C-alpha cells in the first residue's frame, strides 16, 4: 500500500512544509506493529516527489480479525491493497497536510494549486475502469490505470484484479489528500475491517466543499456508509429490469399461496406440514385456516427460520391464528414427527433438489408418513416462454424445471402402487398454450376415501 505525490513547477519545494516532512530525513513510525514510512525520492527546485507507504505486519493483521477459521483469512490482499486501513495508518503522518495547518508562514500555500501527480495502489475494486474515472475526473484529475501481471503458466484468469492508479491535475495538496481519503475506501472491496463512527465523521469532514457537488455523490455516500449499515445489508442496487421481474414474482407467489390455501381448505385438515417453509409466508396463511389445530413449519435454514418465527409472532397478535411450530428437518431423513399428518405440502421445494435424490424423499413421504393429502408445486417450464426467458431457469439454485408432461409423468411414477389419487392443477395466470406458471399435483390417499 503506497501513495506517491509528485509536483513539478515553481515553488514545489514548499510542499515539504505543507507535509511537515523534512526533506533531509526519512520518516518512520510504528503503528500497532505496522510501519508507516515516508521518503523523498526527488527534491529539486522544480520537482518534488515523495512516497508514503506502509509495511504491515501480516501476522498482527490476521490476529486482529474474526473469521479466523477460513484459510482466506490468512492469505488475502489486505496487506497490499490501499484501503480504509491504509488511510488510517497514514493519517497521522499526513495530518498537517490534510488539515491544511502548516506553520503560519506557509499557510498561504494551502489553497495554492500545484501541477500534481498522484500515484497509489494497488487498488482492489469491483468498479470498472470507467467507473473509477467517473469518480476522479469530476474533481479535475486525469486518470491513468495500469494492471498487474497475469503471466500464469495455466489459464487462471483473463485480467489482473490488481490495479495501480495515476492521477494528474492542477490541485491543492489538501483537496487531493482529502479526496483520496474518501475515495480510496469507496473503491476498495471491503472485506474485514470495521470502521467506527468517528472515522465516518472524519470522512464526512474531508468531503467538505466538493462532495456535495460530485455527480456520484449518492454512490460515494452509500459506499462510505455501508460500514455503518452493514447489518441492515440491503445496499445492492437492482437494475430496473430486475425490479419488474421481482414484482411479477411477488404476484405469482401470492397467487400460488392463495391456490394452495384453497386446496388445503377443501381437505378440512387438522394437522398440516409445510416442508421447506422458508420465511414462513405460506405457513402464516395456513395458521388462519379454520379447523387447523397444528402446523409444522419444517425448515433447515437458520436465518429463514428466524424470519418465519418473527412472522408467526406478528400474526399471533391477530385472533384465530394457530401459531405454527418451527421445526428443523430434512427430506432425506426419516422423521417420526411427520407421520400420520393430514396434509403435507412441498411448495416450490423439489426444484431445489437434485432430481435423482427426489424419488426416495417422496417415497418416504408417501409411504412412511402417509399423509391424507400431499401437495407438491413446481414451476412449469413451458410458461417461461411467456417470460421470454429462453433456456434460463427461474432461479439460480433451481436444479431443473419441468414441462407439464414431465411433471405429470414424474408424479405418476411416484404413485406406482396406486395408493393415491392424483389431481393436477396450477396457480397463477393461465396461458392458453403454456398453461399455469406454477404446476401443482394433489395426491389424495385412497384408503382414506373408503
Amino acid at each position, binding site marked *: *500500500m*503506497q501513495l*506517491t505525490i509528485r509536483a513539478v513547477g515553481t515553488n514545489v519545494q514548499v510542499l515539504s512544509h505543507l507535509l511537515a516532512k523534512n526533506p533531509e530525513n*526519512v520518516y*518512520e513510525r510504528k503503528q500497532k506493529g505496522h510501519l508507516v*514510512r515516508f*521518503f*523523498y*525520492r*526527488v527534491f529539486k527546485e522544480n520537482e518534488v516527489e515523495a*512516497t508514503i*507507504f506502509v509495511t504491515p505486519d*501480516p*501476522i498482527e493483521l490476521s490476529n486482529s480479525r474474526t473469521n*479466523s*477459521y477460513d*484459510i*482466506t*483469512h*490468512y*492469505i*488475502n*490482499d489486505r496487506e*497490499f*491493497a490501499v484501503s480504509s486501513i491504509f488511510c488510517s495508518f497514514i493519517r497521522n503522518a499526513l495530518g498537517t497536510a490534510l488539515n491544511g495547518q502548516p506553520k503560519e508562514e506557509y499557510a498561504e500555500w494551502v489553497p495554492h494549486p500545484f501541477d500534481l501527480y498522484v500515484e497509489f*495502489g*494497488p487498488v*482492489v475494486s469491483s468498479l470498472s475502469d470507467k467507473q473509477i474515472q467517473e469518480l476522479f475526473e469530476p474533481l479535475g484529475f486525469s486518470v491513468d490505470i495500469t494492471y*498487474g*501481471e*497475469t503471466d*500464469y*503458466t*495455466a*489459464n*487462471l*484468469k483473463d485480467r*489482473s*484484479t*490488481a490495479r*495501480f492508479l495515476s492521477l494528474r491535475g492542477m490541485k491543492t495538496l489538501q483537496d487531493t489528500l482529502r479526496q483520496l481519503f474518501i475515495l480510496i475506501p469507496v473503491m476498495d472491496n471491503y472485506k474485514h475491517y470495521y470502521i467506527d463512527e468517528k472515522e465516518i465523521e472524519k470522512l464526512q469532514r474531508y468531503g467538505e466543499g466538493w462532495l456535495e457537488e460530485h455527480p456520484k455523490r449518492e454512490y460515494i455516500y452509500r459506499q462510505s456508509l455501508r460500514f455503518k449499515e452493514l447489518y441492515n445489508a440491503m445496499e445492492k442496487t437492482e437494475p430496473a429490469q430486475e425490479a419488474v421481474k421481482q414484482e411479477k414474482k411477488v404476484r405469482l407467489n401470492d397467487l400460488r399461496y392463495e391456490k394452495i390455501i384453497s386446496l388445503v381448505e377443501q381437505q378440512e385438515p387438522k394437522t398440516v406440514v409445510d416442508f421447506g417453509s422458508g420465511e414462513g409466508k405460506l405457513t402464516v396463511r395456513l395458521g388462519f385456516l379454520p379447523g387447523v389445530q397444528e402446523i409444522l413449519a419444517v425448515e*433447515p*435454514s*437458520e436465518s429463514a427460520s428466524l424470519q418465519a418465527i418473527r412472522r408467526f409472532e406478528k400474526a399471533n397478535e391477530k385472533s384465530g391464528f394457530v401459531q405454527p411450530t418451527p421445526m428443523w*428437518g*430434512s*427430506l*432425506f*431423513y*426419516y*422423521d*417420526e*414427527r411427520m407421520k400420520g399428518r393430514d396434509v403435507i405440502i412441498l411448495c416450490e421445494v423439489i426444484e*431445489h433438489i*437434485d432430481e*435423482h*435424490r427426489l424419488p*426416495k*424423499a417422496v417415497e*418416504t413421504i408417501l409411504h412412511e408418513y402417509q399423509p391424507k393429502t400431499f401437495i407438491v408445486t413446481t414451476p412449469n417450464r413451458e410458461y417461461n416462454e411467456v417470460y421470454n426467458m429462453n433456456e434460463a431457469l427461474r432461479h439460480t439454485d433451481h436444479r431443473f424445471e419441468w414441462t407439464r408432461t414431465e411433471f405429470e409423468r414424474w408424479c405418476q411414477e411416484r404413485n406406482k402402487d396406486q395408493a393415491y389419487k392424483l389431481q393436477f392443477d396450477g396457480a397463477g395466470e393461465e396461458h392458453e398454450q403454456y398453461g399455469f406458471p406454477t404446476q401443482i399435483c394433489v395426491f389424495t390417499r385412497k384408503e382414506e376415501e373408503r
Partner: protein
Amino acid sequence: MNISLPHAGIVLLIGPSNSGKSTLLKTQIDGGDIKQSEVISSDAFRVFVSDQEFMDWRGMPKDEAGYAKDEYRAISKEAFAMMDAFIEARCRLNKLSIIDATNLQPDDRKRYLHIAKKHHVPVIAVILDVSEAELLKRDAGREHPRGKRRIKQQYQTFKREKRFIKKEGYKAVYTVDSTEDLHIRRQTNPLEIDLGNGIDVIGDIHGCFDEMTALLEKLGYLKNERDLYVHPEGRMFLSLGDIMSRGPKSLEAMLFFHKHVQANLAYMIDSNHGWKIARWLEGRKVTLNHGDERVKEELDRFEERAGKEKAEETKQALKKLLLKAPSHYVVTKNSLPVLICTHAGIKDVFIGKQSPAVQDFCRYGDTDGFDEKGKPVRKDWFIGHERQTLIIWGHDPKPRPLVINNTINIDQGVVFGGELTAFRYPEKEYVSVRAAKDYAKESDNPLLEWEKNRLNPPNIAKFIHGYNVLTKELGEVHVSADIVKPAIDAVSHVTVPIEQLVYIPPTMSPTPETASAERFMEHPAEAFHYYRSNGIQTMIAEKKHMGSRAILFLFKNREASKKYTGIDSLGVIYTRTGRRFFNRNQEEELLAQLCHDLTKSGYFEKYETDFVLLDAEIMPWNVKAKELISSQYAHVAENAVLDRTRLVEKLKVSHDGQEKVKEWLEEYKQKLKNADTFKQAFQYYCWDVESMEDIQIAPFHILAHSGQTFFDQPHTWHMEMNCKLAGMSRFFVETEYKTITDEASEKEVIDWWEEITKDGHEGIVIKPEFFIAHNKEKLLQPSLKVRGKKYLHIIYGMDYLLSQNLERLKKRNTGKKQKTALKEFALGIEGVQRYVSRESLERTHECVLAVLALESDPIIDPRL
C-alpha cells in the same frame, strides 16, 4: 461326610450357639480348604461396629440391663446391615461367602436367599445338628457363656425350623451331626472353560448339518474312525446353541453334539430353541412352532425307523444334553476370562453366573414386548456392555458378522440361505460356509428384511440433538447438536446422496512440534520423533500430492451400484466435504472410463468384489479449486508483486545519503522475491485441463472391497495396490514412497523431502507402518504431514520465513487438530467397516455425519 461348596455364592451355616460353626470353619481354614476372608461372622461384625462381640446382662440391675439389651439390639442391627452389604458386594463379584451366624430366624435366611437371587449366585445350607445337652455342656465351658436360658431358647427354635429348611430353596442342604471326618470339596465355576489350544465358536446351525460338517472341515477338523471330528492341533469347537429347528437335519445335529460333548471335544450352550425342545422332551406342554415342529417330525420318522425303545433312549439322551447346556461360557486364558459365548445376549453383571434369570436372558436377549406380528421387539442389550471382554453371540441373523461395542454377532442365518460362521479364537478370524439354499422358506426371511430395510432413510431424531458414535478404535465419540445441524443441512443440500456418502476422509495434523531446524516451519525430523517416541520402529513416507482430496466409489457395473446404494450409476466421486467432484457429465465420462479400465484388467474378478472404495487426490488443483486460486492466491500474488515492484522502483532511485532508504530497498527486494516465490508456489499445482484426459488420480488408500476393509494392512500394501491400479488405467498415477527403519533411511527421506519440495512439491506424509497404530492403549496419529518450505508460502503467507514472522508462527498449537484427526480417523474406519458389513444406512451415516460435523467446527486453525 463330604460337603461340596459352590465356586461362588452363599453358604449358610445353621445352628445354635455352640453347635460348632466357628470351630468347623477354623479347622477348614487351617486345613487350607477355605479362606479366612470367605468367612463372614456376625460376631466379627459386632466387633467392627462396636468393639464388642458379646454383651451379658444377666445379674445386672434392671435399669442397667435395660440399657444393655437396647444397646445389644442396636449393635446387632448395625452389624447385620454392614454384614449384608458386605455379602452383597461379594455376591456381585461372584465370590463365596460363608456365613457364620446362628441363622435360626427364617427372616434372616430369607434375606440371604434374596441377596443370592438378586445377584444370581447359589445358596447352600449346612445344618449343624447338635443335641441340647451337648450345646449346654459346650456353653458352660466357654469364656463368655451365653447362658442356659438363651441356649435352650435357641435350641427350641432350631428344632422347629429344621423341618422347613429343606423347602426354602437352597441348591443343596447338608445336615452335619458330627464335625469329625468332614471333607470340604471346592467346585470350580462350571461356566469357565480353558482356551487350551484354541476355540472355534460356531453360530446358529439350525439343522444345517451338511454346512456344519463342511465348516468343521474348513476349520481343519478331521473325522476319525469313531466318526468324531477332532482337530489335529487340539482345538475345540463351541456351538452358540440353536443347533436345531427350522432346518433339514436337526436330529443329526443334536446327535452330533451329544456325541462330541460326551467325548469332551465340543461345547454347546443353551438357547431358545434348545430350551423349547428340551422342555418338550421332558414331556411339558409346549407349542412347537417357528420350525420346532420340524424337530418333532424328524423324531417321529426316527421312531418309525428305529422303534419306540431306541427313540425313547435317544430322546432321553438329547434331553439331558439340552438341559445340561449352560447359559453361557466364559473362556479363560491363564485363568482370566478372555471371551464370553452366549446365545442371544448377556448383561455384564451376569457374566460367570447362572440363575433362571441369567438363563432366560442368555436365551432370548433383552426383549421389550412384542410387535404387531407377535415377534419379540429386541432391545440392543450390547449397548450396556462396558467390560473389556469380548462377547460372541448369535440368535439374531445378520448378513455379515456384526461387530458392535466389543461384541460380535456370528449368526449369519445359514438356515435362511445365508452363511454359517465360525469365529476362531484367539486368532479372531471368521471362517464361513454358504448355505446350499434357504431351508426355512419363511415369508419374513430376516436376511431379506435386513437387506430391504438397509437403505431406509436415517432417523433424524437420533442425530439432531447431538449424539455419540461408538467406535472400535476410540470408544465413544461425541458430536454436539450445534455442529450436527450444519452437517445435516449440508447433507440435505449439497452433498452426494446419503447412500453414496460412505466415507469422509479425516483431517490430518502436521507434526505436533514445529521444526527445531532454523528457517523451517515443518521438518520430517519432528514426525520421526513423534512416532519413534511412541514406540513405532517402521514408518513410511509418501509423497503428498497437491490437488484436491477425493473419494472414489467405483462399482463393477450399474447393477452392483443399485444393489449397494439403490442408485443407478457406476459410482460416484466426491470431495472431502461430500460434494460431487465433477459435474454430472464429466463424472459419468470418468466413471465409465475407470469402470472400463478396471473391468478390462480383471480387477473386480481378481479381488472378487463388486466395488472398490478409494481415498485419493485428484490433480491438478485447479480442476476443483480454480475459483479459489484465481480469486485468492493469484489475486494476492498480483497485488503483492505490483505493490512491491513499484516500491522497489521508487526506493532504487532515491537521492543519496539516506542509509535508511537503502535498508528499505534491501528489505523490499527480498519481499519482492517472496512474492515471486508465492506466485510460483501455487502455479506449480495448476495446469490447463482441456479434457478429462488431463486429469490425474493418485489413490493412496484402498479403503474397501465389497467383502472387506483393508485397515489391517500395512501402508506398503496400499502403495503396492495403488501401483497396480496405475497399471490398469492411465487416470491413476503412482505415489512415490519410502520406508523408514533406521537413521540412514530417515536421512534419505529428509534429503528426498528437501529435493522435491524445493521444486515446489507440497511435501510428504509420514505414517506408521500399519494403518492403525497404538502406543499401549493410546491411538496414534495415523499420519502426519510435513509440508515443504516453498509450499508453506501459500499457507502462512509469502513472508512467513522472515525470522520475525517465523518465530511467532512456530508457536502454533496442534492439540485440537490432533484430537479431531483421531476422532475423524476412528469414525472413518468405523463407518466403512459398518458399510462393508452391510449394516443399515443409518449406522454408516452416523459416522459420516459425525465427520462432517467435526469438520464444520470452526475452532481449528485452517493453516494446520
